[in-house]
Protein backbone atom coordinates (compact mmCIF):
# COMPACT_ATOMS: atom_id res chain seq x y z
CA UNK A 1 0.00 0.00 0.00
CA UNK A 2 2.16 2.87 -1.16
CA UNK A 3 -0.55 5.12 -2.52
CA UNK A 4 -0.91 8.40 -0.72
CA UNK A 5 -3.94 8.71 1.50
CA UNK A 6 -6.30 11.03 -0.31
CA UNK A 7 -8.57 13.36 1.54
CA UNK A 8 -12.25 12.49 1.29
CA UNK A 9 -13.99 14.82 -1.11
CA UNK A 10 -16.33 16.23 1.50
CA UNK A 11 -13.70 17.74 3.76
CA UNK A 12 -12.61 21.35 3.14
CA UNK A 13 -9.05 22.03 2.08
CA UNK A 14 -6.57 23.01 4.74
CA UNK A 15 -4.45 26.12 4.65
CA UNK A 16 -5.55 29.72 4.27
CA UNK A 17 -8.58 30.08 2.04
CA UNK A 18 -7.52 31.95 -1.06
CA UNK A 19 -8.95 33.04 -4.33
CA UNK A 20 -10.51 36.24 -5.57
CA UNK A 21 -8.90 39.71 -5.34
CA UNK A 22 -11.36 40.68 -2.61
CA UNK A 23 -9.87 37.98 -0.41
CA UNK A 24 -6.39 39.31 -1.00
CA UNK A 25 -7.51 42.82 -0.13
CA UNK A 26 -8.90 41.60 3.18
CA UNK A 27 -5.68 39.79 4.03
CA UNK A 28 -3.65 42.84 3.02
CA UNK A 29 -5.67 44.98 5.43
CA UNK A 30 -5.23 42.43 8.22
CA UNK A 31 -1.50 42.33 7.54
CA UNK A 32 -1.31 46.14 7.57
CA UNK A 33 -3.14 46.28 10.90
CA UNK A 34 -0.94 43.60 12.45
CA UNK A 35 2.32 45.10 11.15
CA UNK A 36 1.44 48.51 12.55
CA UNK A 37 0.35 46.99 15.84
CA UNK A 38 3.56 45.04 16.09
CA UNK A 39 5.64 48.13 15.27
CA UNK A 40 3.71 50.09 17.91
CA UNK A 41 4.49 47.52 20.60
CA UNK A 42 8.07 47.18 19.40
CA UNK A 43 8.71 50.93 19.53
CA UNK A 44 7.69 50.96 23.20
CA UNK A 45 9.95 47.97 23.93
CA UNK A 46 12.92 49.43 22.00
CA UNK A 47 12.52 52.81 23.68
CA UNK A 48 12.47 51.21 27.12
CA UNK A 49 15.89 49.69 26.45
CA UNK A 50 17.41 52.72 24.70
CA UNK A 51 19.75 55.31 26.15
CA UNK A 52 18.97 58.33 23.97
CA UNK A 53 16.73 58.35 20.93
CA UNK A 54 16.58 61.70 19.19
CA UNK A 55 16.92 60.78 15.54
CA UNK A 56 17.53 57.69 13.48
CA UNK A 57 15.84 54.36 13.38
CA UNK A 58 17.22 53.07 16.65
CA UNK A 59 18.45 54.57 19.91
CA UNK A 60 22.14 55.40 20.23
CA UNK A 61 22.78 52.68 22.76
CA UNK A 62 21.03 50.04 24.78
CA UNK A 63 20.75 49.69 28.52
CA UNK A 64 18.51 48.02 31.04
CA UNK A 65 18.91 50.64 33.76
CA UNK A 66 15.47 52.12 33.00
CA UNK A 67 13.88 49.02 34.44
CA UNK A 68 15.62 49.30 37.79
CA UNK A 69 14.96 53.05 37.72
CA UNK A 70 11.26 52.53 37.04
CA UNK A 71 11.07 49.77 39.62
CA UNK A 72 12.43 52.05 42.35
CA UNK A 73 10.90 55.33 41.25
CA UNK A 74 7.36 54.08 40.75
CA UNK A 75 7.57 51.58 43.66
CA UNK A 76 6.49 48.88 41.23
CA UNK A 77 7.01 46.10 43.75
CA UNK A 78 4.26 47.55 45.95
CA UNK A 79 2.07 48.44 42.98
CA UNK A 80 2.28 44.89 41.63
CA UNK A 81 1.46 43.42 45.03
CA UNK A 82 -1.55 45.71 45.37
CA UNK A 83 -2.66 44.87 41.81
CA UNK A 84 -2.50 41.14 42.51
CA UNK A 85 -4.26 41.45 45.88
CA UNK A 86 -7.10 43.56 44.52
CA UNK A 87 -7.55 41.38 41.44
CA UNK A 88 -7.60 38.11 43.37
CA UNK A 89 -10.02 39.42 45.98
CA UNK A 90 -12.33 40.74 43.25
CA UNK A 91 -12.23 37.42 41.40
CA UNK A 92 -12.86 35.41 44.57
CA UNK A 93 -15.77 37.60 45.72
CA UNK A 94 -17.33 37.79 42.26
CA UNK A 95 -17.23 34.00 41.91
CA UNK A 96 -18.42 33.32 45.45
CA UNK A 97 -21.45 35.58 45.08
CA UNK A 98 -21.97 35.36 41.34
CA UNK A 99 -22.06 31.60 40.80
CA UNK A 100 -24.96 30.91 43.24
CA UNK A 101 -26.80 33.92 41.84
CA UNK A 102 -26.31 32.61 38.32
CA UNK A 103 -27.67 29.28 39.49
CA UNK A 104 -30.78 30.84 40.98
CA UNK A 105 -31.39 32.90 37.84
CA UNK A 106 -31.00 29.89 35.59
CA UNK A 107 -33.25 27.57 37.60
CA UNK A 108 -36.14 29.75 38.72
CA UNK A 109 -38.78 31.80 37.00
CA UNK A 110 -40.08 34.30 39.46
CA UNK A 111 -42.02 37.54 39.32
CA UNK A 112 -39.62 40.42 38.78
CA UNK A 113 -36.97 38.29 37.11
CA UNK A 114 -36.81 40.67 34.16
CA UNK A 115 -36.16 43.59 36.51
CA UNK A 116 -33.31 41.73 38.17
CA UNK A 117 -31.85 40.82 34.77
CA UNK A 118 -32.07 44.44 33.66
CA UNK A 119 -30.43 45.61 36.87
CA UNK A 120 -27.58 43.18 36.24
CA UNK A 121 -27.21 44.22 32.61
CA UNK A 122 -26.98 47.95 33.30
CA UNK A 123 -23.47 47.97 34.84
CA UNK A 124 -22.24 46.03 31.81
CA UNK A 125 -23.88 48.42 29.35
CA UNK A 126 -23.18 51.79 30.96
CA UNK A 127 -19.75 53.40 30.59
CA UNK A 128 -17.73 52.96 33.82
CA UNK A 129 -17.35 56.74 34.20
CA UNK A 130 -21.14 57.14 34.34
CA UNK A 131 -21.57 55.12 37.50
CA UNK A 132 -17.95 55.53 38.59
CA UNK A 133 -18.31 59.21 39.45
CA UNK A 134 -21.44 58.88 41.64
CA UNK A 135 -19.93 55.73 43.19
CA UNK A 136 -16.68 57.57 43.95
CA UNK A 137 -18.69 60.42 45.49
CA UNK A 138 -20.53 57.97 47.76
CA UNK A 139 -17.31 56.13 48.65
CA UNK A 140 -15.61 59.41 49.56
CA UNK A 141 -18.57 60.25 51.76
CA UNK A 142 -18.25 57.01 53.74
CA UNK A 143 -14.43 57.31 53.77
CA UNK A 144 -13.88 54.15 51.78
CA UNK A 145 -12.29 55.84 48.77
CA UNK A 146 -8.53 55.47 48.69
CA UNK A 147 -8.64 52.20 50.56
CA UNK A 148 -8.27 48.71 49.16
CA UNK A 149 -11.84 47.97 50.25
CA UNK A 150 -13.10 50.86 48.16
CA UNK A 151 -11.19 49.76 45.08
CA UNK A 152 -12.42 46.19 45.46
CA UNK A 153 -16.00 47.41 45.92
CA UNK A 154 -15.82 49.59 42.80
CA UNK A 155 -14.36 46.77 40.72
CA UNK A 156 -17.07 44.37 41.89
CA UNK A 157 -19.76 46.46 40.18
CA UNK A 158 -18.92 45.33 36.63
CA UNK A 159 -17.31 42.01 37.67
CA UNK A 160 -20.25 40.51 39.55
CA UNK A 161 -22.89 40.93 36.79
CA UNK A 162 -20.33 39.65 34.31
CA UNK A 163 -19.86 36.41 36.28
CA UNK A 164 -23.63 35.97 36.62
CA UNK A 165 -24.26 36.54 32.91
CA UNK A 166 -21.51 34.10 31.94
CA UNK A 167 -22.62 31.45 34.46
CA UNK A 168 -26.35 31.41 33.71
CA UNK A 169 -26.08 29.60 30.35
CA UNK A 170 -23.58 27.17 31.86
CA UNK A 171 -26.06 26.23 34.60
CA UNK A 172 -28.86 25.89 32.06
CA UNK A 173 -26.86 23.22 30.27
CA UNK A 174 -26.83 20.97 33.34
CA UNK A 175 -29.72 18.51 33.53
CA UNK A 176 -31.90 19.06 36.60
CA UNK A 177 -32.23 15.28 36.87
CA UNK A 178 -28.62 15.10 38.04
CA UNK A 179 -29.54 17.25 41.03
CA UNK A 180 -32.69 15.26 41.71
CA UNK A 181 -30.67 12.06 41.65
CA UNK A 182 -28.19 13.48 44.15
CA UNK A 183 -31.05 14.50 46.43
CA UNK A 184 -32.65 11.09 46.17
CA UNK A 185 -29.37 9.58 47.28
CA UNK A 186 -29.59 11.76 50.38
CA UNK A 187 -27.41 14.75 49.52
CA UNK A 188 -28.25 17.98 51.27
CA UNK A 189 -28.26 21.35 49.49
CA UNK A 190 -24.69 22.11 50.48
CA UNK A 191 -23.56 18.70 49.28
CA UNK A 192 -25.44 19.10 45.99
CA UNK A 193 -23.46 22.26 45.43
CA UNK A 194 -20.02 21.09 46.47
CA UNK A 195 -20.16 17.51 45.18
CA UNK A 196 -22.33 17.80 42.06
CA UNK A 197 -22.75 21.30 40.74
CA UNK A 198 -19.32 22.82 41.30
CA UNK A 199 -17.44 19.95 39.59
CA UNK A 200 -19.86 20.10 36.66
CA UNK A 201 -19.64 23.88 36.45
CA UNK A 202 -15.86 24.00 36.79
CA UNK A 203 -15.15 24.93 33.13
CA UNK A 204 -17.61 27.80 33.36
CA UNK A 205 -16.30 28.96 36.74
CA UNK A 206 -12.75 28.86 35.42
CA UNK A 207 -13.66 30.80 32.30
CA UNK A 208 -15.59 33.45 34.22
CA UNK A 209 -12.81 33.77 36.80
CA UNK A 210 -10.08 34.23 34.20
CA UNK A 211 -12.11 36.76 32.24
CA UNK A 212 -12.80 38.77 35.41
CA UNK A 213 -9.09 38.57 36.23
CA UNK A 214 -8.13 39.98 32.82
CA UNK A 215 -10.81 42.66 32.98
CA UNK A 216 -9.90 43.78 36.49
CA UNK A 217 -6.21 44.12 35.65
CA UNK A 218 -7.17 46.21 32.61
CA UNK A 219 -9.97 48.18 34.35
CA UNK A 220 -8.71 51.73 34.40
CA UNK A 221 -11.58 54.15 34.99
CA UNK A 222 -13.09 52.78 38.21
CA UNK A 223 -9.77 52.17 39.95
CA UNK A 224 -8.55 55.57 38.80
CA UNK A 225 -11.59 57.34 40.27
CA UNK A 226 -11.49 55.54 43.62
CA UNK A 227 -7.84 54.73 44.34
CA UNK A 228 -5.11 56.86 45.86
CA UNK A 229 -1.34 56.36 45.77
CA UNK A 230 -1.37 53.36 48.13
CA UNK A 231 -4.22 51.46 46.54
CA UNK A 232 -3.64 52.03 42.83
CA UNK A 233 -3.18 49.23 40.36
CA UNK A 234 -0.47 49.03 37.74
CA UNK A 235 -2.56 50.51 34.94
CA UNK A 236 -3.45 53.57 37.03
CA UNK A 237 0.20 54.04 37.99
CA UNK A 238 1.11 53.82 34.31
CA UNK A 239 -1.50 56.42 33.39
CA UNK A 240 -0.36 58.81 36.11
CA UNK A 241 3.23 58.53 34.90
CA UNK A 242 2.28 58.92 31.23
CA UNK A 243 -0.03 61.86 31.93
CA UNK A 244 2.75 63.92 33.50
CA UNK A 245 5.46 63.67 30.83
CA UNK A 246 8.62 65.64 31.38
CA UNK A 247 8.74 64.85 35.08
CA UNK A 248 9.77 61.26 34.46
CA UNK A 249 12.00 59.97 31.70
CA UNK A 250 9.97 58.64 28.79
CA UNK A 251 12.09 55.49 28.81
CA UNK A 252 11.22 54.73 32.43
CA UNK A 253 7.52 55.11 31.61
CA UNK A 254 7.98 52.74 28.70
CA UNK A 255 9.79 50.31 30.94
CA UNK A 256 6.73 50.29 33.19
CA UNK A 257 4.55 49.85 30.11
CA UNK A 258 6.59 46.81 29.10
CA UNK A 259 6.18 45.33 32.58
CA UNK A 260 2.43 45.87 32.30
CA UNK A 261 2.47 44.29 28.85
CA UNK A 262 4.34 41.25 30.18
CA UNK A 263 1.78 40.83 32.96
CA UNK A 264 -1.09 41.05 30.45
CA UNK A 265 0.60 38.65 28.06
CA UNK A 266 1.03 36.06 30.81
CA UNK A 267 -2.65 36.45 31.72
CA UNK A 268 -3.69 36.17 28.07
CA UNK A 269 -1.69 32.99 27.60
CA UNK A 270 -3.20 31.47 30.73
CA UNK A 271 -6.64 32.53 29.55
CA UNK A 272 -6.17 31.05 26.09
CA UNK A 273 -5.02 27.79 27.65
CA UNK A 274 -8.32 27.41 29.46
CA UNK A 275 -10.90 29.15 27.28
CA UNK A 276 -11.58 29.28 23.59
CA UNK A 277 -12.31 32.95 22.90
CA UNK A 278 -15.07 32.38 20.35
CA UNK A 279 -16.88 29.99 22.68
CA UNK A 280 -16.84 32.49 25.50
CA UNK A 281 -18.38 35.16 23.36
CA UNK A 282 -20.95 32.68 22.14
CA UNK A 283 -21.88 32.15 25.77
CA UNK A 284 -22.08 35.86 26.48
CA UNK A 285 -23.68 36.92 23.25
CA UNK A 286 -27.19 36.00 24.30
CA UNK A 287 -27.12 38.51 27.12
CA UNK A 288 -27.29 41.83 25.30
CA UNK A 289 -30.14 40.61 23.14
CA UNK A 290 -32.70 40.71 25.90
Amino acid at each position, binding site marked *: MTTAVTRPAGLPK*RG*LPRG*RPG*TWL*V*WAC*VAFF*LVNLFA*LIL*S*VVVNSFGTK*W*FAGWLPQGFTSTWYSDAWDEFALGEVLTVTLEITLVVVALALL*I*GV*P*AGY*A*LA*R*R*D*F*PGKRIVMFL*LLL*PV*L*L*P*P*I*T*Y*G*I*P*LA*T*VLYKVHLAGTMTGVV*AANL*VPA*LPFVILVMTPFVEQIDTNVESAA*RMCGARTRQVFTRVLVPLLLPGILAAGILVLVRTV*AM*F*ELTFLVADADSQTL*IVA*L*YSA*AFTPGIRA*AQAIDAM*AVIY*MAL*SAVLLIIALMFVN*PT*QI*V*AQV*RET*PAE
Partner: protein
Amino acid sequence: MAVEAPPRPEAPAPGRGGLRHRLAERGVDRVLLLLLPAVLIIGLLFLYPMIYGVGLSLQPKNGGGPLGNYADFFTDSYQRGTVWKTLKLALPAALINVGASVPIAYRLRGRFRGRRVLTALLVLPVTLGTVLVADGLLRYLGPKGWFNRILLDLHIVDEPVRLIYNYWGVLFSLLITGFPFAFLLVLSYMSGIDPTLERAAATLGAGPWQRMRRVVLPLLAPGLATTFVLAFVLAFSVFPSANLVGEPAGETRVMAIAAYQAAFEKYDYSMASTIAVLMGVFELLVISVTLLLRGRLYTGPAMGGKGS
Protein backbone atom coordinates in the same frame (compact mmCIF):
# COMPACT_ATOMS: atom_id res chain seq x y z
CA MET B 1 -38.37 22.27 37.61
CA ALA B 2 -39.46 22.60 41.22
CA VAL B 3 -36.75 20.27 42.45
CA GLU B 4 -36.13 22.12 45.63
CA ALA B 5 -39.68 23.02 46.43
CA PRO B 6 -40.37 22.22 50.07
CA PRO B 7 -42.02 18.82 50.46
CA ARG B 8 -45.77 18.99 50.69
CA PRO B 9 -46.82 18.62 54.31
CA GLU B 10 -49.06 15.67 55.19
CA ALA B 11 -51.89 17.89 56.29
CA PRO B 12 -51.21 21.39 54.94
CA ALA B 13 -51.80 24.05 57.51
CA PRO B 14 -54.06 26.65 55.94
CA GLY B 15 -51.86 29.61 56.94
CA ARG B 16 -48.11 29.67 56.39
CA GLY B 17 -47.62 26.37 54.63
CA GLY B 18 -50.22 27.26 52.01
CA LEU B 19 -48.56 30.55 51.28
CA ARG B 20 -45.17 28.91 50.96
CA HIS B 21 -46.60 26.38 48.59
CA ARG B 22 -48.29 28.97 46.47
CA LEU B 23 -45.08 31.01 46.32
CA ALA B 24 -43.10 27.94 45.38
CA GLU B 25 -45.44 27.32 42.50
CA ARG B 26 -44.60 30.76 41.17
CA GLY B 27 -40.90 30.03 41.52
CA VAL B 28 -40.28 31.81 44.80
CA ASP B 29 -38.54 29.55 47.27
CA ARG B 30 -35.34 29.29 49.23
CA VAL B 31 -33.20 28.97 46.11
CA LEU B 32 -33.84 32.64 45.48
CA LEU B 33 -31.90 33.40 48.67
CA LEU B 34 -28.80 32.59 46.62
CA LEU B 35 -29.61 35.58 44.47
CA LEU B 36 -29.92 37.90 47.46
CA PRO B 37 -26.23 38.79 48.09
CA ALA B 38 -25.67 39.67 44.44
CA VAL B 39 -28.78 41.84 44.25
CA LEU B 40 -27.85 43.52 47.54
CA ILE B 41 -24.33 44.33 46.35
CA ILE B 42 -25.51 45.67 43.00
CA GLY B 43 -28.20 47.66 44.76
CA LEU B 44 -25.76 49.10 47.25
CA LEU B 45 -22.82 49.76 44.94
CA PHE B 46 -24.62 50.54 41.69
CA LEU B 47 -28.27 51.46 42.13
CA TYR B 48 -27.88 53.56 45.28
CA PRO B 49 -24.96 55.63 43.91
CA MET B 50 -26.85 56.14 40.64
CA ILE B 51 -29.96 57.38 42.44
CA TYR B 52 -27.78 59.46 44.74
CA GLY B 53 -26.03 60.88 41.67
CA VAL B 54 -29.30 61.79 39.99
CA GLY B 55 -30.42 63.45 43.22
CA LEU B 56 -27.14 65.30 43.51
CA SER B 57 -27.39 66.54 39.94
CA LEU B 58 -30.71 68.16 40.84
CA GLN B 59 -29.13 70.22 43.65
CA PRO B 60 -26.89 72.66 41.79
CA LYS B 61 -23.99 74.23 43.65
CA ASN B 62 -24.68 77.58 42.02
CA GLY B 63 -28.43 77.54 42.60
CA GLY B 64 -30.88 78.03 39.77
CA GLY B 65 -33.59 75.51 40.51
CA PRO B 66 -33.40 71.74 40.38
CA LEU B 67 -32.66 71.70 36.66
CA GLY B 68 -30.06 74.47 36.91
CA ASN B 69 -27.12 72.19 36.16
CA TYR B 70 -28.78 70.76 33.10
CA ALA B 71 -29.60 74.23 31.84
CA ASP B 72 -26.00 75.30 32.50
CA PHE B 73 -24.67 72.32 30.60
CA PHE B 74 -26.71 72.99 27.50
CA THR B 75 -26.25 76.78 27.44
CA ASP B 76 -22.46 76.61 27.87
CA SER B 77 -21.16 75.79 24.39
CA TYR B 78 -17.86 74.50 25.82
CA GLN B 79 -19.80 71.89 27.80
CA ARG B 80 -22.48 71.25 25.19
CA GLY B 81 -19.81 70.61 22.58
CA THR B 82 -18.55 67.56 24.48
CA VAL B 83 -21.64 65.60 23.47
CA TRP B 84 -20.93 66.07 19.78
CA LYS B 85 -17.19 65.46 20.26
CA THR B 86 -17.88 62.17 22.05
CA LEU B 87 -20.33 60.99 19.41
CA LYS B 88 -17.96 62.06 16.63
CA LEU B 89 -15.35 59.71 18.08
CA ALA B 90 -17.52 56.85 19.27
CA LEU B 91 -19.85 56.40 16.29
CA PRO B 92 -17.16 56.16 13.56
CA ALA B 93 -14.98 53.97 15.79
CA ALA B 94 -17.83 51.52 16.46
CA LEU B 95 -18.94 51.50 12.81
CA ILE B 96 -15.42 50.92 11.48
CA ASN B 97 -14.72 48.19 14.04
CA VAL B 98 -17.91 46.31 13.19
CA GLY B 99 -17.58 46.93 9.46
CA ALA B 100 -13.99 45.74 9.30
CA SER B 101 -14.79 42.65 11.34
CA VAL B 102 -17.35 41.31 8.86
CA PRO B 103 -15.08 40.51 5.88
CA ILE B 104 -12.27 39.30 8.12
CA ALA B 105 -14.53 37.03 10.15
CA TYR B 106 -16.09 35.82 6.87
CA ARG B 107 -12.67 34.60 5.71
CA LEU B 108 -11.74 33.21 9.11
CA ARG B 109 -14.69 30.92 9.74
CA GLY B 110 -14.36 27.28 8.99
CA ARG B 111 -11.24 25.34 9.80
CA PHE B 112 -7.80 25.87 8.41
CA ARG B 113 -4.30 25.66 9.70
CA GLY B 114 -3.22 28.75 11.61
CA ARG B 115 -6.75 29.88 12.38
CA ARG B 116 -6.17 29.74 16.12
CA VAL B 117 -2.90 31.66 15.85
CA LEU B 118 -4.42 34.33 13.60
CA THR B 119 -7.42 34.71 15.90
CA ALA B 120 -5.10 35.03 18.89
CA LEU B 121 -3.05 37.69 17.07
CA LEU B 122 -6.15 39.70 16.24
CA VAL B 123 -7.41 39.41 19.82
CA LEU B 124 -4.06 40.35 21.34
CA PRO B 125 -4.77 44.11 21.61
CA VAL B 126 -7.51 43.33 24.16
CA THR B 127 -4.84 42.80 26.77
CA LEU B 128 -2.95 45.97 25.88
CA GLY B 129 -5.55 48.27 27.36
CA THR B 130 -6.16 51.88 26.41
CA VAL B 131 -3.32 53.35 28.44
CA LEU B 132 -0.65 51.17 26.89
CA VAL B 133 -2.01 51.69 23.37
CA ALA B 134 -2.01 55.44 23.94
CA ASP B 135 1.59 55.31 25.16
CA GLY B 136 2.59 53.23 22.14
CA LEU B 137 0.83 55.58 19.75
CA LEU B 138 2.77 58.51 21.17
CA ARG B 139 6.02 56.73 20.34
CA TYR B 140 5.06 55.14 17.04
CA LEU B 141 3.03 57.91 15.38
CA GLY B 142 4.99 60.79 16.88
CA PRO B 143 6.93 63.18 14.62
CA LYS B 144 10.11 61.11 15.16
CA GLY B 145 8.37 57.75 15.30
CA TRP B 146 8.82 54.92 12.86
CA PHE B 147 5.58 55.60 11.01
CA ASN B 148 6.50 59.14 10.03
CA ARG B 149 10.07 58.06 9.31
CA ILE B 150 8.84 55.51 6.77
CA LEU B 151 6.58 58.06 5.11
CA LEU B 152 9.45 60.58 4.97
CA ASP B 153 11.98 58.09 3.61
CA LEU B 154 9.55 56.96 0.93
CA HIS B 155 8.98 60.64 0.06
CA ILE B 156 5.23 60.28 0.45
CA VAL B 157 5.19 63.38 2.65
CA ASP B 158 7.64 66.23 3.10
CA GLU B 159 6.98 66.92 6.77
CA PRO B 160 5.95 64.57 9.56
CA VAL B 161 2.20 63.99 9.56
CA ARG B 162 0.55 65.13 12.75
CA LEU B 163 -1.31 62.11 14.07
CA ILE B 164 -1.06 62.52 17.84
CA TYR B 165 -2.41 65.11 20.22
CA ASN B 166 -5.49 65.45 18.03
CA TYR B 167 -8.65 63.66 16.88
CA TRP B 168 -6.81 61.02 14.83
CA GLY B 169 -4.69 59.73 17.67
CA VAL B 170 -7.78 59.06 19.78
CA LEU B 171 -9.61 57.44 16.87
CA PHE B 172 -6.65 55.13 16.19
CA SER B 173 -6.48 54.11 19.84
CA LEU B 174 -10.22 53.36 19.79
CA LEU B 175 -9.82 51.27 16.65
CA ILE B 176 -6.94 49.26 18.11
CA THR B 177 -8.60 48.56 21.46
CA GLY B 178 -12.13 48.14 20.13
CA PHE B 179 -11.51 45.99 17.08
CA PRO B 180 -10.69 42.73 18.93
CA PHE B 181 -13.99 42.82 20.85
CA ALA B 182 -16.03 43.51 17.73
CA PHE B 183 -14.11 40.88 15.80
CA LEU B 184 -14.59 38.16 18.45
CA LEU B 185 -18.33 38.81 18.60
CA VAL B 186 -18.79 38.92 14.82
CA LEU B 187 -16.71 35.76 14.45
CA SER B 188 -18.89 33.87 16.90
CA TYR B 189 -22.08 35.09 15.20
CA MET B 190 -20.63 34.12 11.85
CA SER B 191 -19.78 30.64 13.15
CA GLY B 192 -23.42 30.27 14.17
CA ILE B 193 -24.61 30.48 10.56
CA ASP B 194 -24.90 27.07 8.98
CA PRO B 195 -22.54 26.92 5.96
CA THR B 196 -24.96 24.57 4.16
CA LEU B 197 -27.31 27.53 3.68
CA GLU B 198 -24.69 29.20 1.54
CA ARG B 199 -24.02 26.00 -0.37
CA ALA B 200 -27.73 25.68 -1.01
CA ALA B 201 -27.76 29.22 -2.38
CA ALA B 202 -24.78 28.35 -4.57
CA THR B 203 -26.56 25.33 -6.07
CA LEU B 204 -29.43 27.65 -6.91
CA GLY B 205 -27.02 29.77 -8.92
CA ALA B 206 -26.12 32.58 -6.51
CA GLY B 207 -22.70 34.11 -7.01
CA PRO B 208 -20.35 34.95 -4.12
CA TRP B 209 -21.59 38.53 -3.85
CA GLN B 210 -25.25 37.47 -3.94
CA ARG B 211 -24.62 34.79 -1.30
CA MET B 212 -23.03 37.40 0.93
CA ARG B 213 -25.75 40.00 0.41
CA ARG B 214 -28.84 37.79 0.32
CA VAL B 215 -27.94 34.97 2.73
CA VAL B 216 -25.09 35.79 5.09
CA LEU B 217 -25.71 39.46 5.79
CA PRO B 218 -29.44 39.19 6.61
CA LEU B 219 -28.71 36.34 9.03
CA LEU B 220 -25.83 38.26 10.52
CA ALA B 221 -27.59 41.62 10.81
CA PRO B 222 -29.09 41.20 14.32
CA GLY B 223 -25.71 40.06 15.61
CA LEU B 224 -24.07 43.04 13.96
CA ALA B 225 -26.52 45.36 15.71
CA THR B 226 -25.66 43.81 19.08
CA THR B 227 -21.95 44.03 18.31
CA PHE B 228 -22.37 47.66 17.33
CA VAL B 229 -24.03 48.38 20.69
CA LEU B 230 -21.18 46.80 22.64
CA ALA B 231 -18.50 48.43 20.46
CA PHE B 232 -20.24 51.76 20.90
CA VAL B 233 -20.35 51.35 24.69
CA LEU B 234 -16.61 50.69 24.70
CA ALA B 235 -15.82 53.66 22.49
CA PHE B 236 -18.23 55.99 24.25
CA SER B 237 -16.43 55.78 27.58
CA VAL B 238 -13.17 56.90 25.99
CA PHE B 239 -11.19 58.61 28.70
CA PRO B 240 -7.49 57.75 29.06
CA SER B 241 -6.63 57.95 25.37
CA ALA B 242 -8.56 61.21 24.93
CA ASN B 243 -6.31 62.65 27.63
CA LEU B 244 -3.05 61.08 26.51
CA VAL B 245 -3.04 61.09 22.69
CA GLY B 246 -5.83 63.60 22.22
CA GLU B 247 -6.21 67.29 22.76
CA PRO B 248 -8.07 67.22 26.09
CA ALA B 249 -8.63 70.96 26.14
CA GLY B 250 -10.06 71.19 22.64
CA GLU B 251 -10.81 68.73 19.90
CA THR B 252 -11.14 65.61 22.04
CA ARG B 253 -12.68 67.06 25.19
CA VAL B 254 -15.17 64.22 25.53
CA MET B 255 -17.94 64.00 28.11
CA ALA B 256 -15.87 61.75 30.38
CA ILE B 257 -13.18 64.41 30.61
CA ALA B 258 -15.75 67.11 31.34
CA ALA B 259 -17.26 64.97 34.11
CA TYR B 260 -13.86 64.18 35.56
CA GLN B 261 -12.79 67.82 35.54
CA ALA B 262 -16.00 68.90 37.24
CA ALA B 263 -15.55 66.31 39.99
CA PHE B 264 -11.84 66.29 40.72
CA GLU B 265 -10.62 69.67 39.54
CA LYS B 266 -13.53 71.95 40.42
CA TYR B 267 -14.90 69.69 43.19
CA ASP B 268 -18.40 70.35 41.88
CA TYR B 269 -19.83 66.88 42.44
CA SER B 270 -23.29 68.09 41.52
CA MET B 271 -22.19 69.16 38.03
CA ALA B 272 -20.08 66.01 37.67
CA SER B 273 -23.15 63.87 38.43
CA THR B 274 -25.14 65.89 35.92
CA ILE B 275 -22.63 65.16 33.17
CA ALA B 276 -22.43 61.51 34.20
CA VAL B 277 -26.22 61.21 34.04
CA LEU B 278 -26.29 62.91 30.64
CA MET B 279 -23.58 60.55 29.44
CA GLY B 280 -25.75 57.61 30.39
CA VAL B 281 -28.80 59.17 28.75
CA PHE B 282 -27.08 59.86 25.43
CA GLU B 283 -25.53 56.43 25.37
CA LEU B 284 -28.79 54.64 26.14
CA LEU B 285 -30.45 56.76 23.46
CA VAL B 286 -28.10 55.47 20.76
CA ILE B 287 -28.44 51.93 22.12
CA SER B 288 -32.24 52.03 22.10
CA VAL B 289 -32.35 53.38 18.55
CA THR B 290 -30.04 50.56 17.45
CA LEU B 291 -32.04 47.91 19.30
CA LEU B 292 -35.27 49.34 17.91
CA LEU B 293 -33.92 49.00 14.38
CA ARG B 294 -32.65 45.55 15.29
CA GLY B 295 -36.19 44.52 16.21
CA ARG B 296 -37.21 45.02 12.59
CA LEU B 297 -34.64 42.50 11.39
CA TYR B 298 -35.06 38.78 10.95
CA THR B 299 -34.22 36.88 14.09
CA GLY B 300 -34.60 33.18 13.99
CA PRO B 301 -32.76 29.95 13.41
CA ALA B 302 -29.71 30.24 11.17
CA MET B 303 -29.63 26.49 10.59
CA GLY B 304 -30.49 24.52 7.54
CA GLY B 305 -32.08 21.11 7.65
CA LYS B 306 -35.33 19.30 7.49
CA GLY B 307 -38.43 20.81 8.95
CA SER B 308 -36.96 24.19 9.73
